[in-house]
């Protein structure tokens, strides 16, 4: 889809950070410091909510900006707004850190190997959805589905953790979430 199809997307969402990210991609440290001062409290908010530990959250925040320093060239303003792109990187990094904490070392090693390969790309595609639309579609789900999807994305809860919290078997939890995701997609695509 051409970006010109959806001009409404680009205008209101922090466009002024687009050239800043471009400058970061060109290796401009000053631009990185500007980006940090504009976005670090938002990104730190995300890290600290997920990790609930100051030292770890600050450590992950550092990693986020190191990643941005290295990968700013892969930011595509036609696919996502700068703030959303940054927020998703922070959220994904924090989730990775959570996994480090809780995964058994055996599976972790295997997962890490693959993670290193895939780290070369940060894929994020925003369509026209906004927060109100997402909220409306989440509201159409069963309450427990909504609750679990939010807990997974915002607090980093995994399938086993969600199953335990809700007191249901793992298989039941998986099918709740999967049904919820299907419905969510259908609603957002309407």
């Amino acid at each position: 889809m051409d970006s010109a199809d959806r001009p409404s997307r680009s205008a209101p969402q922090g466009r002024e950070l687009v050239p800043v990210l471009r400058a970061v991609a060109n290796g401009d440290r000053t631009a990185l410091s500007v980006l940090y001062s504009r976005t670090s409290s938002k990104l730190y908010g995300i890290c600290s909510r997920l990790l609930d530990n100051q030292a770890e959250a600050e450590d992950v925040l550092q990693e986020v900006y190191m990643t941005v320093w290295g990968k700013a060239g892969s930011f595509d303003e036609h696919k996502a707004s700068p703030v959303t792109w940054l927020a998703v990187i922070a959220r994904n990094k924090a989730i990775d850190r959570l996994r480090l904490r809780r995964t058994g070392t055996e599976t972790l090693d295997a997962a890490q190997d693959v993670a290193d390969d895939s780290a070369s790309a940060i894929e994020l595609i925003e369509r026209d959805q906004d927060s109100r639309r997402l909220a409306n579609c989440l509201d159409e789900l069963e309450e427990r589905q909504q609750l679990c999807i939010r807990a997974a994305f915002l607090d980093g809860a995994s399938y086993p953790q969600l199953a335990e919290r809700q007191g249901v078997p793992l298989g039941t939890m998986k099918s709740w979430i999967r049904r919820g995701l299907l419905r969510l997609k259908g609603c957002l695509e309407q």
Partner: protein
Amino acid sequence: MTLPPISTDEREQLAAELALGVLQGEDLVRARSLYAADTQFRSSVGEWLGRFAPLLEEVEPVEPGPQVWPSIERRLGAPAAANDNVQSIRRKLSLWRGIAVGASALAASLAVVVLTRAPEVAPPFAAQAPPSMVAMLGDERTGGLLVASWQPAQNSLRLSAATPLPGDPAHSHELWVIPADGTPRSLGTLATAAKMQMRVDRQLSRQLQEGATLAVSVEPVGGSPTGLPTGPVIASGKLERA
């Protein structure tokens, strides 16, 4: 490791689960290897992340500790003008701190951000290492266009454009500095590339002070024939300490 083939529906489901962050163990490994190997799968994950991303808007911003930025700087390697850096960035941080990062606040155009900020008075005596400066050149209509950063220690003026400047064989883009006396001085014409770096004549570099305006005008090929801007200004912004 060979993985059994999976159906389109299964893939879509796995992409959603990877984006949501619920997977563990074998499923996670499987999803990640697909992500690494398969661009279509990567796009599906990207679309799911885009669907969930608005949830992040509700997370409250929290100020990180003051030592985080210096740590990042250390990891980047020793900066060239180390003297001034930490302090200048602190100053910058305190300036920007008041600006909320919520989407609505970010909607405020660059011009507004620059205008509402209290001007800082330049120190009467230049410090040993002149401070780095940055200017965001934009207009209210399009938001940011160019970021200029001036490193006096390296005599390097770098420009990065959000999009390459529109190529027009009949015209050139000329960069100007307009210091406190209000008289524009040409810094040269700009290439159409998205990034460029230029050296500045020593005499002229004294004009690159905090508060001076940088502007880009449209001129005949090769630059203004009069030594002053003759065409429309398409972007401008003030230099600030980095």
